[in-house]
Every structure is written in C-alpha cells, then in structure tokens.
C-alpha cells in the first residue's frame, strides 16, 4: 500500500496564520467558559517567558519534543507516517532506566552514552516491527504504530510491575528504583528542571540537518518521501529507505525517553509521558519537517505547555487548552486552500509599492 502522505513544504506565513487561528479559537473557548481570554493569555505568556524560571520551564518542556519532533520528522521525510513515537519512547525510557539502575561504578561520561545507546536500540527494536510489517506485508503503518503505542504502554507496565518494581512499592504505583547518580543529567540552571538533555536534543537536530542535507541517505529519504515512483526509477530502494527512516526515528524517540528519565524522573514511571509523542508530531508538522522548523516548532509547543501549566495552577482552566490550540494549529497548517486565500506576499508587495510611491511622492 502506498500511503498517501507526501510531505509538503510549509511556508512561514502558513505557520504564522495557523498559530493566529489557534490562538483566536483558544480565546473563543475561554470566552465560552466565561474567562477573560486576554487575562488567561497574559498568564500563559508569563508562565512561558515571564522570568528566568518560566523560561527554564519552557525549555524543559521543549527537550522531549526536540527528540520526538526529530523522530517524527525523519519518518515523515521518508514518507512513513510514524505515529508510534510515543510507544518507541516508552521502550527507550525503560531500557535507559534499567541501564541506569543496574550498571554501577561508571563515570557519567561512560554511563550516559551507554544509556543513550541502550535506549536507542530499544526504540529501534520497537519501530522495527511496524517497519517490517510495512515493507514486507504492506500493512499501513498508521494503524500498526498507533496500536503498538497501547501495547508499549501495557508492556512496560507489565515488565516493571513483575520484574523491576521499586523496593517498597507493592504494585500501587508502577515505578522502578532510582537510577545511579552517574546516570543523571546535570542541571543547567540551579533550582529548575532544565537539564543538560537540552544540549543533546539540539545535537540531534543538528545531526538531523546533516543527515537530510548532506548525506546520500538523506537525499534518498527526501526523494522517496516526495515521490516514491521517481525514487524507484532512479534506482533507490524505497523499502530500504522506509526501513531506515523507521529505525532512525525509533532510535531518536527511544533516546528522548531515556533523556526524560535521566533529566527529570530519575526512574521509569508508568505513564511518564503526557503525550510527548503526539506533541512531537505536531511540532514537526508545524515546522514543515525541516531541522530548523522542528527546533522552532518544539520551542513553540514547549512554551505553550509551560504556559498552560501555569494557567492550570493559577486559574481553573485546564492545561488541555494548550493541547486543543496545538491541534487547531495543525488543522489550519494543513488547510492548503484556505491558506491560499491569504496571499500575504502580495499584500507585502502592495505595502512596499505604496511605501515607495509615498516616498517618491514626497516633495524634494
């Protein structure tokens, strides 16, 4: 089956207009629920950018989205709609946590890379299943990856509950023991949750850039994603490309899970991810699946999340408001015909022309 997802370039103006639509619709929802949108948005903005702690919080929520965003973008680039990032992340987090708990006596410089390696392999293994089903049996990866998300969450719960449960926890909360000190990410700003995982996340965005722009595989990924028939004609094995993008995508997602464990939770916790996978997909789609786009998309989604948490703390508006706004934005990003009705560049041209005329009309 040829999955009809072809990545399409997204212009900056589309993203901006979609964000405006998202904010307006979010505002309407607040009005309907009898809140002052301006007040709530002010709280949200303050919670995302207001002070040092707000900024740290925004960046903290950006970190996992860098990984899930890059993971999604690589798969989308290669024409695979991998919505199983969430599940791959769970497997990576568990593998990372176990490596962090049971390997002892190492320095951080050895321990953390080992954890990253283990989590990448686990994520990769989980992504291998839908990839194989796709290239071998033509099974739609949209359905299989999504189903495997549920399976991943139950499977990690099961493994932890029956084999790796924390001492003193009798199945009430499904958590593992804490990871070793050497496996923990150093904090970047004291007394905040911002940790060095940010640097790893940015490194992955840079690697994504080099992969897609500078390597042969990247070129093959791009043309297979845009036009698989053409790619085949040019001698590219599209199935190999699809397998590769899924494996890379799963590996990156897995590392994202482990980084969350190393930086924030210090243990594997059941349901640790508040939908990082889907948020990453949205970040990637908002950013047009380009490296810089993913970076900006993750920053935007992360700030929105941080702001929404502050909103939830100080008002009775649920944090899910942010989720709704994110979803609305992606709907509008995708709405090509609607966006064609906003010829922004033409307006800008007209604006420039008017300015020029006004300038030349001025008396000398």
């Amino acid at each position, binding site marked *: 089956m*040829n999955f009809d997802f072809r990545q399409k370039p997204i212009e900056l103006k589309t993203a901006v207009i979609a964000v405006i639509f998202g904010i307006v619709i979010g505002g309407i929802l607040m009005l309907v629920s009898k809140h002052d949108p301006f007040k709530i948005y002010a709280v949200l903005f303050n919670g995302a950018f207001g002070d040092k702690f707000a900024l740290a919080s925004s960046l903290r929520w950006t970190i996992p989205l860098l990984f899930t965003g890059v993971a999604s973008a690589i798969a989308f680039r290669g024409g695979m709609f991998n919505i199983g990032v969430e599940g791959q992340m769970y497997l990576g987090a568990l593998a990372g946590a176990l490596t962090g708990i049971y390997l002892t006596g190492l320095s951080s410089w050895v321990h953390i890379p080992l954890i990253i390696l283990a989590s990448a392999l686990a994520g990769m293994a989980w992504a291998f299943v839908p990839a194989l089903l796709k290239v071998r*049996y*033509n099974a739609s990866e949209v359905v299989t990856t999504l189903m495997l998300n549920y399976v991943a969450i139950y499977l990690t719960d099961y493994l932890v509950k029956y084999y790796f449960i924390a001492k003193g926890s009798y199945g009430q909360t499904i958590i593992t023991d804490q990871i070793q000190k050497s496996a923990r990410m150093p904090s970047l700003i004291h007394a905040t949750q911002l940790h060095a995982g940010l640097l790893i996340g940015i490194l992955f965005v840079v690697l994504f850039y080099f992969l897609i722009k500078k390597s042969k595989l990247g070129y093959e990924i791009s043309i297979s994603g845009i036009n698989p*028939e053409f790619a085949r004609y040019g001698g590219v094995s599209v199935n190999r490309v699809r397998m590769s993008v899924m494996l890379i995508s799963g590996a990156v997602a897995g590392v994202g899970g482990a980084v969350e464990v190393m930086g924030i939770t210090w243990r594997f916790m059941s349901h640790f991810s508040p939908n990082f996978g*889907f948020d990453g997909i949205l970040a990637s789609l908002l950013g047009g699946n380009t490296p810089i786009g993913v970076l900006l998309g993750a920053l935007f989604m992360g700030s929105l999340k941080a702001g929404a948490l502050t909103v939830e703390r100080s008002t009775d508006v649920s944090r899910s408001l942010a989720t709704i706004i*994110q979803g609305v934005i*992606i*709907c509008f990003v995708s709405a090509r015909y609607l966006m064609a009705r906003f010829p922004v560049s033409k307006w800008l041209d007209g604006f420039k022309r008017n300015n020029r005329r006004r300038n030349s009309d001025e008396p000398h």
Partner: protein
Amino acid sequence: MSLIDASILAVIIRVTAPILLATIGALFSEKAGVPNITLEPAMLLGAFFGVFGSYYTGSSVLGAVSAVAAGLLVALIFALFTLKWGGDEIVVGVAINVIMGGLTIFLLKIIFHTSGSFMSPEIIGFPQLDIPLLDRIPVLKYLFAGQTWVVYFAFLSVWIAHVLLYKTPFGMKIIACGENPLAAATVGVNVYRIRLYALLITGGLCGLAGSQISLGFLSMFSENMTAGRGFIAVAAVIFARAVPVRVLFISLLFGLAEALSNQLQLLKFPSELVLMLPYLLVVLFLVIQPDRFRWKKWKSAGAVSESGA
C-alpha cells in the same frame, strides 16, 4: 469463577456493540474513498456528550441525540478541513484526535468541575430492554436479553448498511466515489457532497457508539475512555474488505477479545498482558491478510508502485 459462563455471552454482545457501530461507520468512509481516522475522537466526544445530555435532561434518549450531534460535529470539522480546504486526511485526522482528547478534558473541567472522570446518579444510562418471548429462545436469550436499544440498533445497522450501500442509488454513488471518483464526477455525481454525507454517517454512528460506551453500562465518563476502539474499527473494516456481513464477524471477534480481557482480569492473570490483546489482534490482522489492507483510494497508486519495484 470460571472463564466462560453464560453471562460472558451477554458481555461479548454488549462490548461488541460500540465497535460494531463504529466499524459500520468506518465502512461508509471507506466505501466513499476517504481515509478517515477521526472515528476515535467522534466516539470520545460522543461519549462525553452522551453523559452531558443525559445529565442535564434526565433522558438517556436525549443523551444519545446529543452524542450523535457531537459525532456529526467532528465529521463536519473533518470534512471542512479536508474536503473543502484541501488538508491532508491523515494530518488533519491526527490533529482532530489531539483536539478532541483535549476538548473532553477541558469540558469536563469547566462543565462538571472535575478531572479524570465524572460519575453521578443523575446520569441516566440506557435502560435494559426486555423483549417479550426472547427469554424462551434457547441461545439468543443469553445473548440479547436485557441489552440496551443501542445494542439492538448496532446489530440492525449491519443490515441497514447492506441495504443502503448495495440496494439504493445513494449507496451506489458512495461506492462509485470510492472506486473511481473521476468517473463518478463525469456522470454527474457530486463527489464532495457524497463524501460529506458518508463522513456524516460515519460521525453520527461513532457518536452513538460513544454513548453506548458511556451510558450503556456504567453511566460515567472518563478521560480517553474509548481507548483506541475507533482505530480498531478502522482496522476491522479494512480487514473485512468493507463487506458489511464480514464487518459483523470481525467486530464480534474484537468484542470477544475485549470481553475475555475483562474476564481474565478478574482471575489472577496479569491485566497488562490481557489489555494488550485487542491491539495485538489488530496488528496480527494486518499481517495475515496483507493484500486486503488497501484503502480503496490507494489501490491504483499501490499497483503502480509495486510493478515498478
């Protein structure tokens, strides 16, 4: 407690009903050639508004009506963004999944001032109907006695869908739009309108399915309570190659898996493993009949790509 007794038969039928309704809904989208993954959010919003309508009106029928309306709303939004504004069906579908997941949590908080789940004696569930003479029929009495009217309607909908799709001009138009939209347009079928109607049927049925989940047994709403059944329906309809009667049997199979996992949890069996069952079943289905997993729309493209491989 034994694994299989007569009561599990009734459970199977009860839990099959929402999956069956959603799968029949998916059938219409599939036949019309629209890759629609907004069944899950339509069910979820339907489940919420079923509770909402029932709580505020005191009538389970009005609960079902508002659930159907919610399903239609989801379908309308999906149609607006994809059919009218040219959005990618999968991208918009994923986005609508995200939106409705958030919206139900948002509404739970502002309407019922709670989070997680909402339960109240004032939510009127669907009444259990006792059909006269049914308790005299040997097997059927275990299956169908004391079910809600939505359950009866779900099983009836298989027949309705069959008649509607294969015996009416409207059904023929739907099938034409899926098989060959260009040819359908050439002979004067308004493809967009037919697809809109098909999506609305899908949305309405999924809304009703949602209300059976929230009002059919426990009369409560909880976050994400549809738990992927909308996606199971998508997989089921592909597996059944979009034939109504096969849809019935596939749905029953998923109902069986769900009922078994409910039952096994009561025994000392790791519930996590059991809860995976329906999802693994979907994946398994995708593997054992690869050729049948083609959404109509991609049939031609797939054939081309394979010959080129």
